[in-house]
């Protein structure tokens, strides 16, 4: 199911700290990116939850994974 994320919210976030402008439909790409990242986050956290033998993803699973994801995505290293 593909939902439509609110573009305005995405744009707002991107422009929060910077004065730079956002091009047209760039926020769509932002959404794409968000989805991808969210996907990766969910996958990793699911794996982590499996490690703990729990069928449900708990908060600590996600937290443990998030740090890695963010650092990984921002560093730009594959």
């Amino acid at each position, binding site marked *: 199911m593909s939902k439509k994320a609110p573009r305005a919210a995405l744009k707002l976030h991107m422009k929060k700290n910077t004065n*730079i402008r956002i091009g047209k*439909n760039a926020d769509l790409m932002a959404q*794409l990116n*968000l989805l*991808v990242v969210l996907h990766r986050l969910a996958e990793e956290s699911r794996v982590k939850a499996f490690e703990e033998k729990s069928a449900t993803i708990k908060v600590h699973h996600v937290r443990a994974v998030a740090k890695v994801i963010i650092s990984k995505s921002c560093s730009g290293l594959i």
Partner: protein
Amino acid sequence: MDSTEDDISARVLLRRVLHTELPRSPVTSSATNVRRSMRLKNTPGLESPGSALRHRLKKKLHESASLSPLPSPKRPRSMVPNTNPPVTVPSPVYDEDMTTRGLLRGIIQMETEASLLMSGQPALQASEPNPAEASVSSAGERTEGLSGVELSDLTLNTEPLTHVVRGLSRRRPQRAFSASAFEKQLDQLPEDVSHVSHKGDISEEKADASQDLDWSSGSKSGLNLTLKTPFVEKRIERVGLQRKVSNRRLPSVDAFDEAVQRCLEQGPNQDHSLFQDGKTLEDSSWQKFTLCLNDVTELYVQPKKDDTAGPSAEMERDAEYEREYELERASEIPDSVPLIQEGKDHELESQDDDEEDVVPSSQENMFLSPEDDIVLAPTQAMTESLPESRDVELQDREFVEEVEIGNVVEIEDQKVVEIEDDSIEDENVVEDEVEEVQDENVEEIEDEEVVEAEHRTENPDTSQYLERITRRAHRSEGGGSVLGIPAATRVTKSFGAGLNPREKDLLDFIDGNRDLQDFSDEEREPPGSPEFPQLHPAAELSTPEQRSQQHEASLAEEDVPEFEEDDDAPEELNQSEEEEELMDSGSASQSPELAQEEEEEEDDDDDALSAELSVKTPAFVRQKRVFTSSIEQAMPTALKEVNAGPAPQVAKRAPRQKRQTGVDVLPKSYVMSMFKHFAKTRVASDIYPAINEILKKYFERLADDLEAYSTHAKRKTIEVEDFELLMRRQGFVTDSTPVNILIEKYLPLEYRKLLIPVATSGNKVIPKQRR
């Protein structure tokens, strides 16, 4: 030629069996005697097919044991045709003889080929269709080839026989075949068939008895087996058989058609229910419920067969009732909404398909459909005109085959359309609905499809909720429609109209956004999810009123006034107003069909009501509020819950003016849904805050990186290329996975169109595309 003879003989045998009565003492040492007896058997007429077969088998056994069966089979053949026509049942062994005989005949017809396919098996098969022929020949053959050991063959043979027999039974569903009699026949048949299959020249009279016994056991086993299309086997083996088969099939086909029609008539409801059931358990439960309701509606419907519209009206009422129930249930089962909705979607689709197939025959259908639509969708924000128009169109297209079914179908179609529309509307695609509505007038089918598609693709929570309800109504109505076709449609119409407008009003009021717009411009477009839930209570209110009214009054007009009485004055007025408004809007917006429908509705409602409506249109707005308040009061707690569901959503819209940018990174619903979707496993609900934080940080970093990229590109705006670079750095995009792939993978269609064209053509389309 033994084989041919055998084949024929098998048939002959079967025929004989059919015609002959109680088998004479099969154990006759002399073949001639057996033959004679067999012949005699043939002449006397039909006896219980089972017994006849048995006799034949015995005879065959005897004959085979004694002499060549050729002569005998020939005789039976000749005799069989002669005897067949008489088909008099000399032996009153069973009352079933007639039926069994018919069965055998059918078998013969059906199974011309199968009988002789296999050495033992085809004989059995053929024996069924040709009890006279097959049995004799097959028996003879069998005896030669089989020395009673070939039970297995029998089983094989029996299978086709059973098929044939069953096929026959299908042809004549009304005939009640006793299992025992049937089995007997089968037993005999397989025996015969087995004989026939043996293409050996087993005298018909050969060892019939012995074979019968053997075969009977085998056949019985074969009976247990599922019938395989004997035709297939027959064709394979013998051309001669094929001919016969084809000839025979003709009659069966006709009978089958008849039977099919009967079935259709009888079980259109069932069919729909089947569709529904397949979707979700909940749906099935609903169906059961609706089915029950249908019965109830029937009661209502019957008395009101006065008007052609009556049935539709009643159906609507029924649908309304059903909806109410559904609504209640809906409130009870909020979680199931998504499932139900999905199921409904499918149902709708299937229903639509069904509906489309059935061409609405008369205007009545039209009435029915609009009413149904109205009744169906508690969310029927859709103006009455919409459903009407749709229904009319749909009906025209579809309602052809069966009026009865058509009515039901129409209703369903309407419902589906409505539901679709409603669902779409719920999804904030008001415009789309309007378009759809209009399109519906022109292209109902297309709209439906579109709606369905939209419906499927977009399933916001609210829409789902509404859809669920509509579906229920749809189903329930569908069931009820069948029953309620004869019922006075008008009555229901009025009610339905009242409900819809009322609901719409309520919804509008709640929304505050579309109160009048929706009504005036697009009556059809339901105000939105929040409206729908409110409609439910309105619908519920109306329905009980209607019910009471229905009981009392047969005429629509009467109902309307009664309705008013029962309902709160303001509600009634609103309803009436709404109805009129809907009708007015519907007529204006839609083709004359709608107008007709509206007119009808108006007529039903009463001139007085119409007058009131027209006068009170301005007060309509006020009444909306009254409705909401009154309705809320009247609404049962369940309904309130339902309303409460969508209400918060609505509430969000109103106070949403002040946005808190920092608080919500993204809407929780969206985030959680995406996360859950990606996670594939259950996700704790309290994860959202954590995810929020994560996303916040992520966004900050993202912005920084993007800024850096654009600056590097000496640009002042972040463009798509920056994102591409970002994704590449993140490892999401590689040389083998271009960005567009990711786009297609993750983004919704609308966005994809924007993004990819952006990269190429640069066409800009609003992200939220409304069909």
